[in-house]
């Protein structure tokens, strides 16, 4: 049997997640419960789309730091729109949110792909720009649950289905679907393979006749659209949207992507890895909150340490498994 290195990575990551869950189940009463499952999945669902979008951008050897502001702007504008048009169909609302995000992403994309400005500079700029726009636009008004239609306020509690007594919420299904769709595209769509090619060796991509500019542009548009989806989920979940909405999401997304085994140097990564990475980071975060043994002040430090440990274990395991698989092969 010969396993692909990426398969090994996923396997190692899954083992790290399993180890984390097993460890905390010995530490926290009632940890392995349907309720805990719901807590972690609903919390991870808000981050997952941005993490998936970030992964696509990172695969092309770029980075999108503007998504925190993109999530905030989309959540606010969508909430504002619903205040004046409460009768819009839910699907239309979600599509509008993703469209807004895609527009924000397109601006980044144009500047990076054809403006030849490094993505870290461009998106750091738009991060501040969109936050400023939100400050100006909002005029210090808060979007509150009172102004939102009932279906949206109820969305976070809505169950998609119950499996063996475990509730799977609609928001979780939405987030996972977005990741699965992207995963399928990246693996199966011929054009999508170019994201990997451009990130793996940009010079070679040009020589191979790939229009690297278009590829990078599309990566940012996708990242924006997925940030839009996150913005929609954010609005549904928290209801209360101020100008600080979505702040810090870019760092969470980067953490999830890196833990999920996407190479920060571009060219490799898988959506399954990003999903597991997002869940792993969120599991650690949510479990620490419920762990008696650590005080609040040590949680952040411990979270950072555990993320590093997870990455180290993952790298180590991949290496071991590769060796093992070679021998077998």
């Amino acid at each position, binding site marked *: 049997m010969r396993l692909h290195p990426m398969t090994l990575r996923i396997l190692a990551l899954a083992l790290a997640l399993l180890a984390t869950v097993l460890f905390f189940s010995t530490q926290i009463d*009632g940890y392995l419960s349907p*309720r*805990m499952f719901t*807590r972690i999945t609903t*919390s991870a669902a*808000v981050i997952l789309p941005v993490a998936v979008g970030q992964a696509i951008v990172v695969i092309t050897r770029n980075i999108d730091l503007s998504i*925190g*502001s993109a999530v905030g702007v989309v959540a606010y504008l969508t909430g504002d729109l619903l205040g004046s048009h409460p009768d819009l169909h839910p699907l239309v609302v979600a599509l509008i949110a993703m469209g807004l995000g895609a527009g924000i992403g397109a601006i980044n994309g144009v500047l990076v792909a054809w403006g030849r400005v490094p993505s870290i500079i461009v998106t750091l700029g738009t*991060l*501040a720009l969109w*936050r*400023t726009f*939100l*400050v100006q636009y*909002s*005029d*210090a*008004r*808060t979007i*509150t*649950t*009172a102004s939102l239609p009932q279906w949206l306020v109820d969305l*976070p*509690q809505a169950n998609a289905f119950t499996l063996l007594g475990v509730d799977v919420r609609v928001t979780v299904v939405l987030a996972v679907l977005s990741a699965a769709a992207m995963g399928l595209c990246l693996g199966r769509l011929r054009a999508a393979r170019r994201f990997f090619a451009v990130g793996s060796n940009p010079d070679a991509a040009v020589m191979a006749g790939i229009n690297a500019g278009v590829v990078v542009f599309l990566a940012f548009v996708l990242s924006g659209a997925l940030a839009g989806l996150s913005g929609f989920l*954010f609005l549904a*979940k*928290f*209801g*209360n949207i*101020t*100008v*600080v*909405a979505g*702040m*810090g999401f870019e760092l969470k997304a980067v953490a999830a992507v890196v833990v999920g085994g996407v190479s920060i140097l571009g060219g490799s990564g898988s959506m399954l890895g990003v999903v597991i990475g997002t869940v792993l980071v969120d599991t650690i*975060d*949510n479990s620490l*909150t*419920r762990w*008696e043994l650590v005080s*609040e*002040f040590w949680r952040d430090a411990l979270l950072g340490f555990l993320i590093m440990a997870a990455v180290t274990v993952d790298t180590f395991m991949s290496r071991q498994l590769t060796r093992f698989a070679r021998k077998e092969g």
Partner: protein
Amino acid sequence: MKKIGIALGLVASLMGSAALAEAVKATPGGAVNMVLLPKFLGILPFDQADRGAQEAAKELGNTGTYQYIGPTPENSAAGQIEMLTTATTQKQNVVMLSNNAGDQIAAVAEAAQAAGTKVVTWDSPIPSGKGESVFVAQVDFGSIGTVMADMVMDLTGGSGEFAILSASPDAANQNAWIEAMKKVLAADAKYKDLKLDDVVYGNDQSEESYNKALGLVDKYPNLKVIMAPTTVGIVAAAKAMQDEKLCDKVKVSGLGLPAEMVSYTMNGCAPEFALWSFVDLGYLTAYTSYMLATGAIKGEVGETFHAGRMGDFTIEADPGRAGAKRVLMGPFTVYTKDNVEAAAK
């Protein structure tokens, strides 16, 4: 409708009345160039303060300029320092600062004072008091402890477990309030059946506060109240309880904005919370600043002055910060379903 008496507020007003005869009045029509500098732009409380400050400036017939400027949320601390520096080089007469940069801003504030620009803090002071003329305190920090303890008493029916969901572990305001609350709980026997389980921090982020609130519920099965002395935390916690259909079991309280809290107060998830008026805080800050800048008051401890519709105030030593001075505003308004709808408009 309940009113909660505030011991220290009472003391302050007594002092005020004692000094009534000497209260200095402002001379209207002066030219004072003022800058109101909030932590960052875009949220309601600071805009309310702006409204109050403008009201005062108009009332005083200030012929100088008035500006409301601030950084974006992402750039709060660095932006404040930059803007204070700019205001100094522009020779503004007074900068009214809700400090979010800790003591980092002290050196810049001292430079401003040296260049003739007064720095009056409000809402959040400079921790060391360096470079600050005077702090206009919204309420006495000690009294917030009493209000929080009384609201927990009310919601638990006198006995039970509760937990605190704060902002960040290093937020000076919240930490002082939590300490004050602990003191109150220990001091008075009527609180003996209340048990504080935990203090957690949501870092003023919706998402983190939401998750932390649910974490508290999971960790302490007998929890009856989540006390959140932060406007972001309280609304996130209320939404979390509503989403998880826990509002019958766990009540949310703390410091919140009526406009954001109205639906949760009406549906019983957060039946009772408190806040002071940011409009009044802005008004009093502008009055204090105008009188300092025109020389009507010097900013010395013991000086008493008249602040328009709000009455008389006295500059006193800040009990929380050695060597610093404050003007105490007070009192609170406690919001319930009887008054929250009116306040939300």
